[in-house]
């Protein structure tokens, strides 16, 4: 039993040991698992630690960079601060300088004001001194006169006193004689003595008066001396003034001489007259041009010395001389028609004259005349005109021959032509006509550009003129079956214009309208008074219109718009250029409205012309 017990206890223990072993095994296993987990964790930690290390390193690098940046920034900030401080200092200095300048300016202003006031005061004082001097001089003169008069009286009184003394003496003698003669006479004598005594008294009184007069004379003498001193002082200041005046005059003369030298050296002829027309300045060019010497004409009447004649040698009356007109009209005049100066040796030359009145406070005090010899300019003008005239003639003559012979052939005047011949000849004829038009337009343009295009306004009937232009183009208008209307404001009186030029203007804009309007289109022409002083020609069509992007070029020489270049090859590109040149030369304006590019919307042209011809405004001073 005991053994059994011990066996079972041993078994028990073994069992327990087994259980324990199992438990240990389980614990070991758990530990192993835990160890494995720990190992994994340790590994992870190690990895994390590495990452952290790497991050830390990066951070360290970043920190280092930041530190460096911070240092740099700190440095920059310091520099900036230093610059700012310097700027602040500079600003402060500038402010101080500005203040000082302001103060200086103020002081200067103050000083200037004081100077102005002082100058004004000095001027007043000087004026007062002059007045005082004048008064003193007057008083001195009066006193001198009075002193002289008193002296005269004193002298007379002295003489009287002497005479009285003489009488008294005589009386004393007579009294003595009388005393000696008779007692009766004694009485008389006594009386006489008394009388004599009285006379003596009177004489004494007179003496007193005389003395007093002497004293007065002395006082007068004193005043006179003082006046002499003042006069001396005045004389001194007068001398100083005279010296100053002399110096100033010298300066003025210098500057006057300079101005005169400038005037006399002007390349054009220069003549200055006074308000009566007397010549006061004539420069060298004028002397040379007029063939006269300044000594001969200075101070003489201009219109008597300078004879102006017209082209035919007829003397221009003095009142029509530009100088006279400048004197009487007080406005600048340029000789309108060409005047010629007839020299004493009978030669003459054309002059361009410009006379201007010299005005002082609105009053004419003389005239200045500038003139030059325009012989060569006139020759150039003449050559230009002759060139255009000759070119016109020479170019058009062969064209006329071609045109006429082709015309006779086409008309069958010398026999029938077959269809083909007719067609070809028609081409020849039409091309020739185009050439004629081109030559005409080119000649007009060259004439405009050479400046030989004179505007000669005269009274014209615009309605008639325009109607004749319409008649000329009627065949083209009806050939294209264009409906045409013409409205004319009846109230319009006659206008002044150059008929040749107006005709060209109307011809050009109307032929354009006809050319550039489709068959069956519409053209409206109207003429009315515009802004009272102008006439407005308005021409609208339903034609091709002018492309928007080319509208600014339409008046340019030889320009043709794209949309008509293909449709019509006849145009010269000169018509509107001519129109614009003429209208603007005549003091008018031309413009148009066109819905550009939109076909068949048409164009409206406006021509504005002054009713009274070209306005020529006088130049007033």
């Amino acid at each position, binding site marked *: 039993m005991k053994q059994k017990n011990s066996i079972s206890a041993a078994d028990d223990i073994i069992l327990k040991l087994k259980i324990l072993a199992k438990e240990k095994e389980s614990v070991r296993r758990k530990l192993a698992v835990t160890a494995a987990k720990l190992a994994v964790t340790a590994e992870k930690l190690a990895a994390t630690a590495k990452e952290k290390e790497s991050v830390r390193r990066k951070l360290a690098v970043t920190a280092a960079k930041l530190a460096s940046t911070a240092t740099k920034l700190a440095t920059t900030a310091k520099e900036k601060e230093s610059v700012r401080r310097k700027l602040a200092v500079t600003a402060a200095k500038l402010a101080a300088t500005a203040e000082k300048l302001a103060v200086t300016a103020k002081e200067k202003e103050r000083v200037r004001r004081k100077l102005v006031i002082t100058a004004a005061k000095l001027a007043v004082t000087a004026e007062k001194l002059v007045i005082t001097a004048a008064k003193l001089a007057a008083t001195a003169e009066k006193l001198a006169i009075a002193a002289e008069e008193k002296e005269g009286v004193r002298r007379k009184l002295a003489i009287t006193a002497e005479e009285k003394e003489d009488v008294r003496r005589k009386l004393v003698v007579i009294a003595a004689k009388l005393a000696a003669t008779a007692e009766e006479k004694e009485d008389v004598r006594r009386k006489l003595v008394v009388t004599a005594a009285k006379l003596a008294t009177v004489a004494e009184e007179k003496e007193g008066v005389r003395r007093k007069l002497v004293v007065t004379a002395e006082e007068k003498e004193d005043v006179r001396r003082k006046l002499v001193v003042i006069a001396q002082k005045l004389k001194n200041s007068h001398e100083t003034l005279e010296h100053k005046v002399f110096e100033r005059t010298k300066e003025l003369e210098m500057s006057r001489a300079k101005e005169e030298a400038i005037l006399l050296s002007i390349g054009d002829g220069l003549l200055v007259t006074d308000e009566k027309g007397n010549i006061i300045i004539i420069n060298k060019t004028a002397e040379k041009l007029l063939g006269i010497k300044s000594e001969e004409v200075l101070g003489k009447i201009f219109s008597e010395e300078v004879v102006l004649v017209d082209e035919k040698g007829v003397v221009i009356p003095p009142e029509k001389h530009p100088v006279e007109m400048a004197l009487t009209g007080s406005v600048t005049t340029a000789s309108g028609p060409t005047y010629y100066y007839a020299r004493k040796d009978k030669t003459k030359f054309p002059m361009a004259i410009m006379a201007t009145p010299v005005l002082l406070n609105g009053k004419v005090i003389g005239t200045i005349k500038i003139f030059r010899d325009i012989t060569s300019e006139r020759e150039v003008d003449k050559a230009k005109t002759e060139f255009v*005239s000759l070119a016109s*003639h020479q170019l058009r*003559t062969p064209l*006329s021959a071609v*045109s*006429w012979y082709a015309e006779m052939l086409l008309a069958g005047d*010398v*026999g029938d032509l077959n269809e083909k011949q007719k067609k070809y000849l028609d081409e020849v004829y039409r091309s020739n006509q185009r050439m004629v038009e081109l030559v*005409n337009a080119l000649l007009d343009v060259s004439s405009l550009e050479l400046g030989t295009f004179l505007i000669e306004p005269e009274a014209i009937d615009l309605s008639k003129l325009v109607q004749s232009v319409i008649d000329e183009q009627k065949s083209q208008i009806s050939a294209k079956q264009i409906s045409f209307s013409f409205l004319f404001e009846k109230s319009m009186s006659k206008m002044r214009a150059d008929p040749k030029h107006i005709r060209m203007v109307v011809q050009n804009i109307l032929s354009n309208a006809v050319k550039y309007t489709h068959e069956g289109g519409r053209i409206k022409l109207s003429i009315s008074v515009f802004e009272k002083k102008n006439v407005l020609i308005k021409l609208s069509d339903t034609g091709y219109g002018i492309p928007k992007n080319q509208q600014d070029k339409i008046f340019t020489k030889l320009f043709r718009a794209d949309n008509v270049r293909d449709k019509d090859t006849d145009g010269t590109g000169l018509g509107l250029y001519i129109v614009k040149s003429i209208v603007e030369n005549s003091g008018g304006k031309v413009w148009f409205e066109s819905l550009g590019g939109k076909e068949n919307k048409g164009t409206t042209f406006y021509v504005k012309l002054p009713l009274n011809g070209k306005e020529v405004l006088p130049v007033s001073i």
Partner: protein
Amino acid sequence: MFRGVIYIMEIVKTSSTHFLANNPNISNFKSSMKKQKTVLIVEDEKSLRGAMVDILCIKNFIPIFAKNGREGVELALSRHPDLILLDLVMPEMDGTAALTAIRADDWGKNVPIIILTNLRTTNDQIIADAMTHNPTYYLVKSDCKLHDIVKKIEVVLKS
């Protein structure tokens, strides 16, 4: 009638229009037969002169011609044409001088004279001068057809 025209043209071409035109016997003969009007052409340019002579023949006028102003005045005063076509720019004597000389004559002061020129009418001093000597009319050659000139001659001669 058509043949007749061709026939006259042949004479003109072969015997020279100049001979025909300036032969007083022929022209006087013609004028007496058909009361044709004589037209004096004063023109220095041969081609233009030829065209005018031809068209006037065709249109039943009697053309006579001169090559410059001097000849023109002589012919005008000796032949007394019914009308004169006068060029302006010519050698020896220009149109204006010829016009002045013809107008100074007793017969010439009333004869119709048409100035035919190729000068620009817009701005020409020569035309302006000529116009002061009382021409009947003036035409610009390059601006008008030959037939227009004939029409103008007919109108002027009728009035």
